[in-house]
């Protein structure tokens, strides 16, 4: 739908620019999570047989999975704190047109 109104500016002031990049980060976060949590698929396992490399130790696996988890949660929290904590919902309308 073409709007007869003025076209949006091509470049934004720094605050708006920063905000949009943070929104990008928010969108990419689950993709990063998928990638990181997909990593265990490539670890050697017991099922690979005796000739395969030593399987990953369970303690390391636990540490890895939980560290990624904590990292994602902290990132999500930080992004929320910066982007939404002090804003009302009505303001997120304009984020549609990033």
């Amino acid at each position, binding site marked *: 739908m073409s709007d007869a109104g003025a076209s949006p500016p091509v470049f934004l002031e720094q605050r708006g620019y920063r905000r949009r990049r943070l*929104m990008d980060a*928010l*969108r990419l*976060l*689950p*993709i990063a*999570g*998928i990638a990181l*949590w*997909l990593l*265990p*698929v490539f*670890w*050697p*396992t*017991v*099922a690979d047989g005796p000739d395969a490399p030593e*399987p*990953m*130790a*369970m*303690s390391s*696996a*636990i540490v890895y*999975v*939980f560290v990624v*988890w*904590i990292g*994602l*949660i902290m990132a*999500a*929290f930080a992004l*929320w704190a910066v982007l*939404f904590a002090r804003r*009302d*919902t009505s303001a997120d*309308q304009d984020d*549609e047109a990033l």
Partner: protein
Amino acid sequence: MTSVNQLIGVSLGYVIFLFAIAYLAERAAQRGKGGWLRSPLVYTLSLSIYCTAWTFYGAVGYAARSGMEFVTIYLGPSLVMIGWWWALRKLVRIGRAQRATSVADLISARYGKSNLLAIVVTIMAVIGVTPYIALQLQSVTLSLSIFSEPGGDAPLNQLIAGFWVAFGLAIFTVLFGTRNLNANERHDGVVIAIAVEAVVKLIALLAVGIFVVWGVAGGLAPMMEQIDASPIGAWDMDRSRWVALTALSAAAFLALPRMFQVMVVENEDERHLQIASWAFPVYLLLMSLFVVPIAVVGLDLMPAGSNPDLFVLTVPLAQGQVGLATLSFLGGFSSATSMVIVATLALSTMVSNHVVMPVWLNLQGPGAQVSGDVRNVVILSRRASILMIIGLGYLYYRFSGGGSALAAMGLISFAGVAQFLPVMMGGIFWRGATRWGALAGLCVGFSVWVFCSLLPSFGPGAVLSVATFDTGLFGLSWLRPQALFGISGLDPTVHAIVWSITLNTTAFVIVSLFIFPGPLERLQGAQFVNVFDHSTQARGWDAALATSEDLLIMTQRILGATEALDLFRAEAARQGVQGHLPEPTPGFLQQLERELTGSVGAATAHAMISQLVGGASVSVQDLMAVADESAQILEYSNQLEAKSAELSRTAGKLREANAKLTALSVQKDAFLSQISHELRTPMTSIRSFSEILRDTDGLGQVEKTKYASIIHGEAIRLTRLLDDLLDLSVLENGQVNLNFETGTLSSVLEKAILTAQASGTGALDIRRRHLDEAVTLTTDLDRLTQVFINLITNAQKYCQAEQPRLVIEVRQEDGAIAVVFSDNGMPIPPAARALIFEKFARISDNDEAGAGLGLAICREIMTRLGGEISFLGGPSGNAFTVHLPTQAALAAQ
């Protein structure tokens, strides 16, 4: 040692405590003091119904059997929450905008408020969730049986215990969930009770975990060592399961009816979702933090063959921690009850809105007034649905033997509800998704799930024969339930998930691509997909025949008398109408439909309103037809407008013509009076002088001659006048015959000057540039000469300068020729200039020689010849320009 009776007492006390909290919360909400009930914290905690008894007991058992695989069940939802911006935000916004009461309602609303689709989704949800409810019954009875074993005096009959648990849960749900019919389908009391239960189960699991790590294993580092040394100490993971289960849990998190209930229906504020996006993963992380340690310690401490699903209970018991075990039991009890309550509520809403109510409404007969209190019917049908659903769960528990591992039962259920996901996501992101596509996708996916996942779960020979397992359905080897299309070697769960979702999505997309959606579907599709652009409803009602009173009666039956009255009063006040009955405007009907949707679902609300509005209910098809009609009318009116414009143009022209005719008539009268005057003057003098000649005797020869020459002169003047008139009339009527010849301009001028000078006084000094006049013309040379003679004669007659001078110039401009006759006489006054080419226009009154027809004739001649004559006044004289037609000059050149 705690006896079962004590445990039951504790459980009952706990339930009464929950009920009290729920009751107080609902009272607070009714008094408008319920702000704290709807905080982000409560919202996040209510999401924890995702963690059921399966999580509480089953995760540990799962870990004891398959190591870290259990965690995939939490990774999927964590990813969905962290990626809330992608799907959840839209889902919640749509759910709120459309007042969706359940997954079935959402899907039916998206695909044109189709009740058929709602029924299919409802049945699938009931079938899919039943194993899950059975799972909760199983976990509660199992946990109870653990406490009964050591006593030994009265071994617990698990089936009977299961029945009583089911019965208790049903009562609990009926009391909690259907105390009133909320317009928004929100349950403040239930939500707060769930939040409390969420805290209880988290604390219980954390307490057991902390006890195991620091109390039994002796700290974090020894625990890690013990984990690595345990049977599950090495990474042993079916890779396809890791991926498939993560994806499945993410899908189920979005599609589970109970998750939809707490996440979308009970959502008060979209900001809560933002907070839950990081807070709920924290909860999930905490819930899974101690699972592996508990499993490892359980495997170490408990005798071989003990059920790993109950390590959460048996480990503290074995260590003599009865209090901790009781807390743990309460945690498991909380997980089971909260899940059963919400799942049953969600399902009963679906069953009652999409199955019972439509049937009941149909039984009422079309167009009949809705009789009786619908509110009671709705609540009754919900209660019956709750009993039926829990009953089904109990039957499944009873006939599945209660033997299968908790995790396996949970996964089957997940795979079943995940079949909604393609249709849901397709519905909110793809406008091309259609009802038949959705129906095809759901049916295909569900059939594959039943065949590959649900039926095999009962074991070979139970429902599906052993032969079917080995050689496939009807002996077709590519229809083996765990190796469809001959692809064997896949994990059965992964196999079922991959095939069901793939075939589901394929059928959904392909049928959608080929089916043209109905108008309502297209409208709803646009509303769903573009929910962030506009959150308005599709217009659908023509309220002309719906009376406000009928509407009020119906609304009272569904929303309750006071609520309905409040609603109508508010609308009446908004419309500025006295009393409590507002005008049934389309806008109000739409609002009403949405209010009713909150109570009975989109399809039923639509049906109820249409029942009242009766034949006047405007379906979107009708609207489209009306739109077509109005387009035709518009076109017709455009045509009319064009015609009317044409008519007014014609009228204008006629008026103009009339004015012209009137002017002409005036002109004609003037002309006639002028002409009679012109004719009378010479006639008078001729008559008088001829009378003198006839009647007077003794006239001298000189006098006779004088009078006769006067008569002669007047007769000549008369003749000339008549000649001119005749000439003009011929020219004006276009009857003139032009005699085209070729000659030079110079010769034409020469002839004209000679003729003019012969008849005039000859005092005029004529100046020419002969060089310019060497132009050959093809035109009526005689007529052109006549024009020139006229102009030169005029100059002779009227130029009153002391030394009259006429300059004749020939100009060539772009091939056109202009002959300019400029004299040095008195300029014609500006007021008279417009009239000089008119008939009988004479500048000065003392002119007796001319009749004032000369210039009029010149203009007519030039018009006939295709040129024109114009006048240009200047400060030192007058100039007449004769423009000769271009082709006249060119043809000659």
